[in-house]
């Protein structure tokens, strides 16, 4: 593989991790979030600061980074999750703009200059770059997918599904809406934090613009395109939405037009996402391999 392909693949893996986190919030618990890039950014900045200013290694910083992002997710989730649907969407957009502004204007976070000189990840004294770093990101993606799979099979996950379908009915079955929505929010933001840390040590320079509102829209698009609430959907969405602009790079002028067209076609013909219920992919799969369950 050449360096360019490795770079794109690494970005796909990182974005997949973040999109999986968003899927926990949006797909499993049904709480719309248009500010997920904020938590991606909090993870990236936390890891960058802990490794450049506090002198920690990536590995010692990582548990802290995940904890910090999850904690901020909890603190911002408590007021946000009091509102529903479109109001929640607007609130989360607000969170995204505020967090971005804090990174941009507070000198501690490097201001407009961002943070540079972020060290590479070392693993047993070997600096990881190129292919090894891609493998590291894929390993974390596998871990995240395992956590997602475990969550969907836990009572907590089932409680989130019930809340997504009908909050009043779920509450009448002993499910505390606040507790389980917050749990999904913390889990989702912690995954974004992990993705952020991997991003920071991959790019080695980050600035506020990397975590702006359009990034949140892109992340939500990945989840919707792949299939909300499915296991593999966000990853498939990330593969398509990160690699498509690269494939269409010669058509620089109109690539966002193609990208928009793709989303509109999806909404019209595959509203459940590529791996969603009764989607084309699933129907073709069951035609080709009768009796076997398609991946979801």
């Amino acid at each position, binding site marked *: 593989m050449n360096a360019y392909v490795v770079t794109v693949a690494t970005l796909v893996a990182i974005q997949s991790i973040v999109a999986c986190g968003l899927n926990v919030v949006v797909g499993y618990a049904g709480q719309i979030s248009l500010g997920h890039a904020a938590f991606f950014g909090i993870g990236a900045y936390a890891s960058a600061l802990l490794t450049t200013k506090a002198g920690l290694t990536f590995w010692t910083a990582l548990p802290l980074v995940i904890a910090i992002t999850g904690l901020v997710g909890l603190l911002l989730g408590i007021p946000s999750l009091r509102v529903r649907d479109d109001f929640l969407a607007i609130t989360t957009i607000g969170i995204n703009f505020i967090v971005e502004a804090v990174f941009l204007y507070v000198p501690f976070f490097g201001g407009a200059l961002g943070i540079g000189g972020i060290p590479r990840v070392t693993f047993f004294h070997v600096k990881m770059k190129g292919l090894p770093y891609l493998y590291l990101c894929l390993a974390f993606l596998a871990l995240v997918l395992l956590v997602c799979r475990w969550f969907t099979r836990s*009572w907590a996950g089932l409680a989130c599904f019930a809340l997504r379908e009908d909050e009043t*009915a779920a*509450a*009448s*079955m002993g499910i*505390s809406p606040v507790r*389980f929505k917050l749990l999904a929010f913390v889990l989702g933001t912690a995954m974004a934090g992990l993705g952020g840390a991997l991003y920071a040590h991959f790019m080695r320079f980050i600035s506020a613009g990397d975590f702006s509102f359009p990034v949140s829209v892109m992340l939500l698009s990945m989840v919707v395109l792949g299939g909300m609430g499915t296991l593999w959907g966000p990853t498939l969405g990330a593969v398509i939405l990160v690699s498509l602009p690269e494939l269409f790079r010669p058509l620089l002028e109109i690539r966002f037009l193609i990208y928009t067209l793709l989303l509109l076609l999806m909404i019209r013909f595959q509203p459940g996402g590529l791996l969603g219920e009764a989607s084309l992919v699933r129907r073709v799969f069951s035609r080709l391999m009768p009796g076997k369950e398609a991946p979801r």
Partner: protein
Amino acid sequence: MKKVLLSVRDLAKHFGGLRAVDGVSFDLHEREILGLLGPNGAGKTVCFNLISGVYTPTAGEIHFAGIRSDGLPPHRMAALGLGRTFQIVKPFSNLTVLDNVIVACGVDRYRSLARSFGGWTGAAVRKKAVELLERVGLADEADRKAGLLPLGHLRRLEIARALAVGYRLILLDESFSGLREEEIAPLMDLVARIRQDGISVLLIEHNMRVAMKLSDRIVVLDHGRKIAEGLPGEVARDPLVIEAYLGRGGSSRVA
């Protein structure tokens, strides 16, 4: 005298100027089926929502299973063993019928975060949910999406979910409405058997034949106030009740 399970004292709920429930008191004993009747807009469903914790009362007290329960949120009431159905059915549409019941089977799990991390895909849970579906006669539909079921089936699904939660008391909000005639008798048997299992039932019902036959006692509401309470036979002859349903002077004219 049987023990009081649910005690409602001077209960009131006002929405702005509207007194939806206005000073209602009644007791529900253990192993009793109490019918809550009244014309449309009498405040029956608001009463249900107050008891099950969806609304906080404007005034009055509710005692359930020995504790003061008014103001407790719905999930706490569920944990105390209160199961309920909804007049406007609320299925988890994108889950299967079986999974709908499994959600309700987890009522003990949701009380602590640590316990909620256990898995719900085990055979024991599945077996319990299938048994509940068999009791309401929905076992054949277990693997269908709940959103695809007709109303009669959804009403039975709601009862199955309420049964999984309510080991002390079950509130049935018009569970018989929209059912076909031949579906009603088995469901009445089911409710009667629920009581035999030691569970109390509070039911809102517009089908008079069902309400009169099932209920041990009946409480009648009108305009948010209790206008009658007693045995089914007594209540049916009460002039105030007849007036509430048919209007003033209706009793003589209709008779």
